[in-house]
Every structure is written in C-alpha cells, then in structure tokens.
C-alpha cells in the first residue's frame, strides 16, 4: 500500500498547483482500489462510480490541505470509505420500500442460496448478506476480504485501533453466518 509514498506526495504537491497531468497519474494509480471499495460498500455500479468521482474531485480540491499525518493512499481510501458510507446511508433511507419487497420474495422461497450456488443470483445473495451487516462491520469486512488489507492497514483508514478492527471483523463474520446458515438450511 505504501510503495508509491514519495511519488504520491510529490503528485499531491503538484495537484495543489492544479497540475492535471499529476492528477491523472494519481487517479490511474488509485482508481481501481477506490472504485472496488466504493462498489463493494455501496453495492451499485453507477452509484459507486459517482462516489469514486466525488472522491477524486475532493482530492483535487483539497490536495493542498493534506497534512502528511498518514500515507497518501490511506488518506485517499479514508475519503473513499467515508463517501461510500454516506451514499449507503442515503440509499438505505430511500430503499426501505424495496427491502420490504425483498423480504416478501425471500419468504416465498425465491432466493435460496442452495439453488443460487449454480445461478447468477449468487452475487445478489452475497450483496444482500453484506447489506445485513452494520456499516462499520461492513467497511472492515469489505476492506479485509475484497481489498485484501490487513487489520493494521484497515485501522489506519478507519481511524481506529487494530484491536477494534479485529473485533469488527469477528462480529461481521458471525453476523454473516447468522444470515447465511438459516437460509442454507431452508434448502434441505
């Protein structure tokens, strides 16, 4: 994560002077990681792309205010996580009706993971399982499982201790188990 540390700082310095070439380099270096984080946290491609755009726009605007208290990449990923969680909160509020229809669908036995293992709906089931998690646990789980970060790196991004991250990861896994097991058993 820190292999581009010096280059990143130099790029930020140039971005603060409105150098678009430097900005493009920074975007190309980090866009996949930022987009993966946004995509997995938000769960919607278009909203994630919008969020990722906002993340880089914010970086462009506030490059001059970077205080060098952490790595540039950590700073960027922190902005990405915060922006994604904000989008998630907004969309959760507006999707409560949608969740009701999902519940009815599940009750009707339309989405059983046993059957889904062989279908394209597996992605949707996993997404729903992730949506079941509280947002802090979800952020820790996504950064760990999908982005492959260690608890120490996640702790830096989320601004908490590594122990807190370990606890959140443990709870996230147990909650996912709670969500998945009864649905798996239904298929027997």
């Amino acid at each position, binding site marked *: 994560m820190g292999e581009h540390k010096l280059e990143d700082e130099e790029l930020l310095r140039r971005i603060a002077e409105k150098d678009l070439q430097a900005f493009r380099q920074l975007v190309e270096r980090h*866009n996949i990681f930022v*987009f993966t984080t946004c995509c*997995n946290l938000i769960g919607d491609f278009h909203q994630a*792309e919008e969020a990722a755009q906002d993340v880089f726009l914010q970086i462009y605007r506030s490059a001059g205010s970077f205080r060098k208290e952490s790595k540039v990449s950590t700073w960027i990923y922190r902005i990405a996580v915060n922006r994604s969680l904000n989008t998630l909160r907004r969309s959760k509020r507006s999707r409560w009706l949608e969740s009701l229809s999902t519940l009815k669908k599940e009750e009707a036995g339309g989405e059983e*993971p046993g059957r889904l293992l062989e279908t394209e709906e597996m992605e949707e089931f996993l997404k729903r399982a992730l949506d079941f998690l509280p947002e802090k646990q979800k952020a820790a789980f996504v950064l760990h499982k999908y982005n492959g970060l260690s608890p120490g790196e996640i702790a830096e991004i989320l601004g908490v201790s590594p122990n807190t991250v370990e606890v959140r990861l443990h709870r996230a896994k147990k909650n*996912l188990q709670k969500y998945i097991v009864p649905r798996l058993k239904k298929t027997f």
Partner: protein
Amino acid sequence: MKKKEMNPECRKVEENLVDLVEGNIPEFRQREIQKHLESCPQCGRLADRFDRLWQEFSKRDLVSPSASFWENLFCSIQADERPYFWGLFISGMKHSFRPAAIIFLLLLGLFFGYYLGDIPGGSEKAISEEVFIDQYVQDFQDFPQGSVSDFYLKYEIQVKDQTS
C-alpha cells in the same frame, strides 16, 4: 407444537462454521467436528455448502470503473473551476452592492416606520370615549338611589349634557 431439540454437536457445528472454514479452531476441536461431520450427513452438507458460499467472498476481483471515468472526472473538474454567472456577477458588483443594499434597507425602514407610526389622532380618541360613555350609561341605569355609583352616574350625565 414443541420444537425439536437440536443435537449439541450439530449446534456446535452450526455456531462455528465461519471459524471452521477459516481454520480458526484448535486442531483437537477441529478433529472432533470433522468426525461429527462424517457421521451426520445434514451437518456435512451444511458445512460443505457454507464453505462454497464463503469462498465466494474471497473470489471477488478488483473492479475497474467504466472507460469514460477519466473523461467524466475531467469534465467535473472543468465545471468546478469555471466561475458560474451569478458568482461572477456578485463578485463584480461587490463594491456597489453593499452600499445599495444598506440604502435600500434604510428606505424600507423609513417606509414601514411612517405607516406604523400613524396612530389614531385626538378627534378619533374623543369619539371613541363618547361612544363608551353612552354605552356605559345605557347599561348601568339601575343603581340604588343615593348610592355612590348613582351619584357618579348622574354627575357624568350632567357633565355630558353641559358639554353638548
């Protein structure tokens, strides 16, 4: 109907599936569970399906944004840097706008002050008092003879007759 009691060994498997598939269980415990999984087909099937599902979480690749990501971002930056019309107008008018706003507020204050300060004059006040006394006299003509109220009422009527 009484719910069927769950086998304690099955319950342990169910409660430790994540730790089991991630290998976070002590070796001796893992051997015990493995033994149970071989003897209990339902738990075996559950563990197998859970394992396959759990692996899906780790199989996800990094995701790339669409091809137009940079172009869209570049457009957003250009739009962000372009001063918008009203912003430009206000910044251009800054020096003349403030005194004009102050003068406008002063005139507005004078205008409202003039109309709010126009209270009823002396003649309107006298008329309203007269109407009040007439009403008073009509309403209270049955005071006992010789009482203070009767005396005051007669005095009021006398004064009124003299003035008219």
